């Protein structure tokens, strides 16, 4: 534990000095606000609209379908690496896993998730 004392002291000193500067500046300093002074300094142009704009909700459906296949891949890749050692049991287990995921995909398809209306 004792070797960390130095880091702890540094944290306390850094926090103390930074805090003291902010507190002293705001309490002792002279305040004479003008609109120019209150404007955001060096922060670029004022935004005209929200950065994202409006996004159609259908993209969320696409994102969820993407996750379905993404999860599949996360497991398929390590499985493929050790495929030979697992043998038939490994193949059957992966079949069950893919089958369950495909049930979800079929459900989405069945309910029109793939129709871009």
């Amino acid at each position, binding site marked *: 534990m004792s070797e960390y004392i130095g880091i702890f002291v540094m944290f306390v000193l850094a926090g103390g000095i930074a805090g003291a500067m902010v507190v002293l500046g705001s309490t002792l300093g002279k305040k004479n606000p003008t609109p120019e002074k209150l404007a955001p300094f060096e922060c670029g142009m004022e935004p005209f609209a929200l950065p994202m704009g409006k996004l159609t909700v259908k993209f969320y459906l696409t994102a969820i379908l993407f996750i379905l296949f993404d999860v599949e891949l996360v497991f398929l890749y390590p499985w493929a690496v050790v495929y030979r050692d697992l043998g038939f049991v490994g193949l059957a*287990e992966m079949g069950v896993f893919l089958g369950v995921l495909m049930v979800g995909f079929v*459900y989405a398809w*069945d*309910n029109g998730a793939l129709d871009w209306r």
Partner: protein
Amino acid sequence: MNGVTIADLLLLIPELVLVGTALVLILLARRIRNAPVAATATVVAAVAAAALAAWAAPGAAETGFGGLIVADGYARFFKVLIAATLALTALFSAKSLEDARIPRAEYHVLLLLAATGMMLAASAVDLLTLYLGLELVTLCGYTLVGIRVDRPASNEAAIKYFLLGSFASGLLLYGISLTYGITGATDFAGIAAALAQRDAGSDPLLLAAIGLVAGGLAFKIAAVPFHAWAPDAYQGASAPVAGFLATGSKAAGLAALGRVVLVAFGPEAHTFSVILVVLAGLSIVVGSLVALPQTDMTRLLAYSSIAHAGFALLGFVAGTPEGVSATMTYACFYVFMTLGAFGVVIALGERGESLDGYRGLAAQRPMAAALMLLFLLSLAGIPPTAGFAAKFVVILSAVRSGHVVLAVLAVACSVVSAFVYMRIAVLMYMREPQAAAPERFPFAVSAALAVAALVTLIGGLIPGTFAAWAVAP
């Protein structure tokens, strides 16, 4: 490590039945939208799962999946209880699914998967499997609470439940990781062995681990101070979902907590006991007192369920197998009496949701009022109902372990809560009706009410009936 064998899968037969039914229902979801097929399939699957759990479980405990899952008497008890909860909820849902625009197949799939998670949590002997099971329950729970998409209150409740639920999952996971750091194991036997070898003396890291695990699990059973989500979630959800969460989710949480207290952290039972005493005492006091001013029936039952979570914890306080078996008895009776009370609320529809709706119910529907009275008496713990037998065993267990003050507190708060429940009885029997008589209950709802009432009565008249099955791990 070998692959999964058939013997492993046989241990999970009840869960596999539920998952299989859920998968078939998902595939057929679009075709069975307007028929009670999904409800029937769910009830059949629940009965089959209960029968398989009761029949297939061997006398001795059998572990599988490399020591992640165990099939013993403890798991069997909770699996049958959870299957019963699932079946009764599916029956109760018949009415509210008619009224609200809820996709039927999807609703039942979520119920089935939540029940699977509960069963998994009951038979897990590894902290990560336990977490997996509980997380399956809460994930389905979030969706079930928010399934009435056209009602803003339902969405709000789902968001609240989700935010607090993920926070609690974080607590539990952090506790699990600290436990792994201290003991180098996630399986219960390994944790217990490592803890038993440690030299005496308190370790702040171990205290933090125990506190975090207890806190994460206390959220699942809605024990004070981890209860804030329950009233809002129950009120926003439709009444059958609220009943399912209040009973099934709580039973699963208790099952998980019982195994963790008794098996995994058995060598540290005294530390765990202190935390449980605080949780139990606070839950009983807050649950009973805050239920007093409620005017919304679901909120009232939510606070009642918080108080009951406290009572159930009284059994764990002792940290002995007898205490755990007392809590199991409590969980069993609690599930049926609470589901019964929720069932009457469901059957009365809109009218059942506010306390004023119960004015003069006895004059209009004497049978419904009598059933409600039975469940209320049981919730209050008045003989000869199951609620009395349940409270008796847990308070006795607390007294035997030397927690007399806690037991006195529990009895005192029991009196306070009796006032809460009897207020509804007074409204039903001694006031003039203000609303029109409710329509006839659907057959499914009546059948489920009858089952709940039967267990509540048998549990009260012959309390030993279920005690033989309530064996601690």
